[in-house]
Structure formats: structure tokens, C-alpha cells
């Protein structure tokens, strides 16, 4: 991502300086993130069951309603191999904390042999869930939990006509749980891997069951259940101890990294007067120094860019750090030119914008990493109300912030004491958050894609966890 993708022969001459590594190319990619609506929710690509699978159900023993959401046992049960069993059309989704579905027993028929459970893909479609390997079933007639041939145990109450019964998978605890009339009746450890299908079964005359895959509100308060599960996890996490004042230090280094100097000064002043004063072990060695480097210059440039004063920012850069802007084809210059163009569009100076674009932006067309942003910028001209358009993200504050962050990183990279130029790109806070996210994703992928991923955005809005 950070390597120059323009390494082909046609452009390599122009890009001689930063061919080995132009740090600002990293921000070029960031600048385009605004074009899609935030980072995509990685968990939404999973399909959830919506209806019953009428193709592989036990044909002949049961009738499925037109909407594929209810079944009825129409024949006479003669033995153990004529169960009316049916699976959902999709396996239970796994990239979440909990999966849950419900059935409503409309009619328990002559014997009340209704069952709810989970079965794997190759399940024998004429047997009760729990009678065969790789299946779990909670049975209405005896209230037992069946989990494979010869394996059953006392579990919950029996259920019959008029009862609403639910089956769920708790991916955090690796358990199945079942509910009756909105109350959890029991949990059982899940030792199955691979996709599991929500399954229901009827096995005596006139038994009729409706299924709810979430198309209607559940009787069971799933939200509350999830909240409690998250709370349990949170309590475990809260037991971990952190080094003293570590958050304080992380915030401080963030302010330093991005050059929020005024905030930093207030922060330092306030912490000197707290009782007892916040003690921060001095950041040892070069890393600490790198970061106070050029603080007031970085602050000034950030303010200018945030105010849309791109010309002044350019001039200051030429004066203070000519090496950053001497190559007019660098990603830094490009981002600044784009921003200048955007600011002109913002104030409605369209003619001037066109003129500026012809001089400064045209050269970037047909350069692979630059092209997308140039096109978006130019597209602003096509709309009467560009902020409403698909390229409206360019007019938001966050775009100015990206440009300011680019300049900030480039100035940091001019520090002669710098050890690793990659350190300019990410604050400590960002490195820690990346590590957190990566750990959670990796853990999930090593557990068969089960469970919730960590997303900073949802953690901030107070909901989901790892």
C-alpha cells in the first residue's frame, strides 16, 4: 500500500525522488476512503436464514406453507424414520455474538412430537434433530435435549400447543441455548464445527409449527440477552490492570503526533495542577523527541489547511520545508493542489477552479494512484449542489483533515533523528487500535469465523465488543 505503484517506466522519471517510498501516498489512499460510506461493515456480507428449505425437506411426511414459514405433519407416523423435518434455507450466520430463531407451536397434534434444534448440512432428513450425529434438538414431548445417537439429557420443560420456543447459538461461550415463552430454559455446550442449520420437526398427525427467522419481533428479548453477554465479557476485561496513567500518556502522544499544540498545552497545564500531579515516565530516547519535533510549525499548517487557506500553507511549506514541496508531482503536492481546487469549488469560484485544475491537476490524469482522486475532484464541477453528490465527501471537514495529516506526517519525516519513517504515519493510539482490531479478526478467523469482530465505530457508539 505504501509502495509507489507508479513504478512503470513511463512515469518513473518524474517520480524519481520518491520512488523508493513516498510516505504521502499512504494518505492518498486515505483520502479516497470518504468516497464509500465509511469502512464497510465486514459482518453484513453474511446471509441469514429467511425461510425454510423446501428442496431437501423430508418429502411426503409434511406440507410446507406457501410462504415457506410453517409446516404441518399430514401423514400418520409409523416408525422413527418418517419424521417431518426441515432446515432453514441458509445456515446460521456466524460472524456475530448470537444467532437466534423461534418457532410457535400452532398445534401439537396427536402426540406433540415437535422439536427445535440445529443440524449440519448432510443431516438425514427423516429423523428428529438430536437423534443423529452432528445435530442438537430440544424436544417438546419430554423436554429433553438430544445430541446424537443415544445421547439425551434432562434439559427444560415440555412444550406444546400455544408455546413459543427458541433456539440460539452463543458464539462467545460456544453454547446452544433454548427458550420457552421468552425465558431461557437451558444451555448446552456446542461441540460442532462447520455450518449449522436451524431445524424444526413435527412427527404426529396435525402437528403444525410456524417459524420466525426474525421477520417478526421475537417473543424473547434478544437485545437484552446480547447486552448481558457483552456485559459479562466486559467485566472480565475490566479485571485486567493497566500501567498507571497509560491512557493519559497515549492521549498526550496523540496530541503531539498530530500537532494539536493548543490542546496539548491546556492538557499539560491542567495535569500539573491536579492532585496528585499525573506522573508520566519521560518518553525515553529518540521516539519521544521525534514527536515534539516542529510542533508549532505543524500546528500552524494544520490550522491553515483546516481553514482552507491552501496558498498560505503552500508558501509556509516552501519557506520552512522546501524539500517536501520541491517535487510538484509528489502525493503531498497533489493533495494540496486538489484541496486548493476543492476550496475554490466550495466558495463557488468555478472558473478559477477550472483554470487551476488545468494548470495543476491535469498532469495527474492517467497516473494510476492519482487518477481516482483527480476524477472525483473534477466531477465536483458537474453538480449544481456538489455537496449532495457522490463526490460530496471532498467538501467535508474530514478531507481537509487528511491533507493536514499528510503535511504533518511529511514534516515529521524530515526529522533527522528519525529512525523509522513509518513511525510518522501512525500515532501510538492508532497502532494500538490496529493491533486490537487485527487480534480480534485473527482470533475469529482461527475459530472458524465465529463471533463478533471488533469495530471501533461500534465500540464508540456504546454497543458491540470484540
Amino acid at each position, binding site marked *: 500500500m505504501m509502495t509507489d505503484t507508479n513504478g512503470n517506466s513511463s512515469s518513473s522519471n518524474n517520480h524519481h525522488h520518491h520512488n523508493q517510498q513516498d510516505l504521502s501516498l499512504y494518505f492518498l489512499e486515505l483520502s479516497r476512503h470518504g468516497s464509500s460510506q465509511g469502512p464497510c461493515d465486514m459482518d453484513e456480507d453474511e446471509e441469514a436464514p429467511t425461510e425454510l428449505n423446501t428442496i431437501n425437506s423430508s418429502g411426503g411426511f409434511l406440507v410446507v406453507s406457501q410462504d415457506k414459514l410453517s409446516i404441518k405433519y399430514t401423514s400418520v407416523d409409523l416408525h422413527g424414520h418418517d419424521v417431518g423435518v426441515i432446515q432453514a434455507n441458509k445456515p446460521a450466520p456466524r460472524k456475530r455474538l448470537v444467532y437466534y430463531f423461534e418457532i410457535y407451536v400452532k398445534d401439537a397434534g396427536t402426540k406433540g412430537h415437535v422439536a427445535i434444534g440445529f443440524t449440519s448440512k448432510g443431516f438425514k432428513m427423516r429423523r428428529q434433530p438430536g437423534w443423529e450425529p452432528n445435530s442438537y434438538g430440544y424436544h417438546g414431548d419430554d423436554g429433553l435435549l438430544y445430541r446424537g445417537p443415544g445421547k439425551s439429557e434432562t434439559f427444560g420443560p415440555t412444550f406444546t400447543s400455544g408455546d413459543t420456543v427458541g433456539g440460539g447459538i452463543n458464539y462467545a461461550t460456544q453454547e446452544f441455548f433454548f427458550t420457552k415463552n421468552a425465558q431461557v430454559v437451558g444451555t448446552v455446550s456446542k461441540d460442532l464445527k462447520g455450518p449449522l442449520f436451524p431445524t424444526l420437526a413435527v412427527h404426529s398427525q396435525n402437528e403444525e409449527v410456524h417459524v420466525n427467522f426474525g421477520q417478526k419481533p421475537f417473543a424473547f428479548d434478544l437485545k437484552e440477552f446480547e447486552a448481558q453477554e457483552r456485559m459479562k465479557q466486559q467485566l472480565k476485561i475490566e479485571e485486567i490492570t*493497566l*500501567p498507571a496513567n497509560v491512557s493519559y500518556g497515549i492521549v498526550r502522544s496523540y*496530541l503531539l503526533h498530530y500537532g494539536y499544540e493548543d490542546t496539548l498545552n491546556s492538557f499539560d497545564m491542567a495535569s500539573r495542577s491536579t492532585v496528585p500531579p499525573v506522573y508520566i515516565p519521560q518518553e525515553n530516547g529518540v521516539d519521544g523527541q521525534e514527536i515534539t519535533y516542529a510542533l508549532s510549525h505543524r500546528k500552524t499548517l494544520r490550522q491553515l489547511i483546516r481553514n482552507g487557506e491552501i496558498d498560505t500553507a503552500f508558501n509556509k511549506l516552501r519557506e520552512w520545508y522546501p524539500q517536501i514541496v520541491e517535487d510538484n508531482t509528489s502525493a503531498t503536492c497533489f493533495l494540496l493542489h486538489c484541496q486548493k481546487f476543492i476550496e475554490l469549488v466550495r466558495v463557488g469560484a468555478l472558473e478559477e477552479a477550472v483554470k487551476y485544475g488545468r494548470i495543476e491537476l491535469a498532469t495527474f490524469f492517467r497516473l494510476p494512484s492519482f487518477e481516482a482522486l483527480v476524477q472525483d475532484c473534477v466531477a465536483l464541477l458537474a453538480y449544481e449542489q456538489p455537496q449532495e453528490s457522490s463526490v460530496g465527501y471532498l467538501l467535508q471537514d474530514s478531507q481537509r483533515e487528511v491533507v493536514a495529516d499528510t503535511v504533518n506526517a511529511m514534516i515529521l519525516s524530515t526529522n533527522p533523528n528519525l529512525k523509522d519513517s513509518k513511525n510518522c504515519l501512525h500515532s501510538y*493510539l492508532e497502532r494500538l*487500535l490496529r493491533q486490537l482490531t487485527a*487480534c480480534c479478526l485473527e482470533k475469529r478467523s*482461527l475459530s472458524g469465523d465465529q463471533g463478533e469482530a471488533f469495530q471501533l465505530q461500534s465500540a464508540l457508539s456504546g454497543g458491540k*465488543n470484540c
Partner: protein
Amino acid sequence: MSLFWIVIRQLAESEAMATSKKVITREEWEKKLNDVKIRKEDMNKLVMNFLVTEGYVEAAEKFRMESGTEPDIDLATITDRMAVKKAVQSGNVEDAIEKVNDLNPEILDTNPQLFFHLQQQRLIELIRNGKVEEALEFAQEELAPRGEENQSFLEELERTVALLAFEDVSNCPVGELLDISQRLKTASEVNAAILTSQSHEKDPKLPSLLKMLLWAQNQLDEKAAYPRITDIPTATLEDPAV
């Protein structure tokens, strides 16, 4: 190959099987890290949440201007909250109680434990200042009746009064009550109660996320060897131990 070596090899193999963990090299891991997108906006929110919850009102104001991040609480209420906290921290407990009641009288009404701890702190301050008679009177009139309602309050009260029995408090087994940390404890309890009354979380989110990082790393340790961050203050990525 001698039998000895065969046995050794088998042992080594079975050990490797038992602890067979996926090994993720630094290069592979860095690639994964680079695929993670953290929005600047979200980090700004996290920092703002810390400043606001910890009561850095001026820094929060400055941060709003420098980063364009909106605070998730009215900044004016932070000033009031910090005034209460500061009063407790400097031993002006009466003043703090008055300020809390000005802010929202329900806070102490609905929080008997907090009220007791504030009164206890008041008693501690009286003892610290050598006002023995006043302290006794206060303990009997204000605190003892509350102790009757609640066994743990009574024990706390007895513990506190024990301070009076020692001329040299440095020898006193409950001497830590006179320590500055006791004031800080009470102060943070008041602080949390005020935040809760403003329907704001009482703790900043950042420490929880850092704890979650340690937790997530511990969990992943069971399944894989990968570059960890053990030293949080410097966010240094270490090479995987194989």
C-alpha cells in the same frame, strides 16, 4: 539412528503437536495491520471522550477548535463537576456537598453510599485538623444513625473513629484513611455519580479499549504466535516468540 534419538524425536514431535500454534511472521502480521482501517474521526472522538470524562475542560475546548471534534457532553457541566471534585480533593467536603446539591439534589438522595462516604470524608478531615470534639459530635449525630441502617456503614464508621485513639497516627492501623488517596477515592466516586446523573458513562472509553487489547492478545496467544504489543505506552510491536 539409535533408539535414543528416535525417542527424542518422537517426544519433540508430540510436543509440537500439543502446542501446535499457527505462526504469523512479522511481515504477514504487518500486512494484516495495514489492512485495518481506523478512521481519524473515531480516534478524535476517543480522545475527546477522554478529555471530557477526565474533566480536562479547557483542553476539550481547544481540541474542539483544533480538530473539529464535537464533545459528547455540554462542556459547561464539566466545570461544575471539576469544582466538586477539586473541593473533595482539597478537603472541603461541606463545600463539595453543597455544590453537588446545586448541580442536582437527586444525586445524593438516590445514592446513600456516596453520601455516607462524603460524610465519612468530612469526619476524616475534622480528625486531621485535630478538632476532636467536633469530630465526635459529628460522628454521633450525623454518621451513627446511618450506621444503624447499614452494617457496612457501621463498620466503616468504627474504623474511622479508631483514628481518634492514636496520638501518633503513623502507628495507627487505619492510618491510610488520612492518606491523600482516600480523598482521591471519594472524589472519583462523586465524579462518577455526577457523570451517571448526566447520563454519561462514568469512565472514559480509552482505558477499556487498552484493556481489551491486552485481553484480545491473551486470547489470540492460545491459538497463534504473532507479533505482540506488550509495552502499551510505546506501542512497540515485538517479534513473535517461536
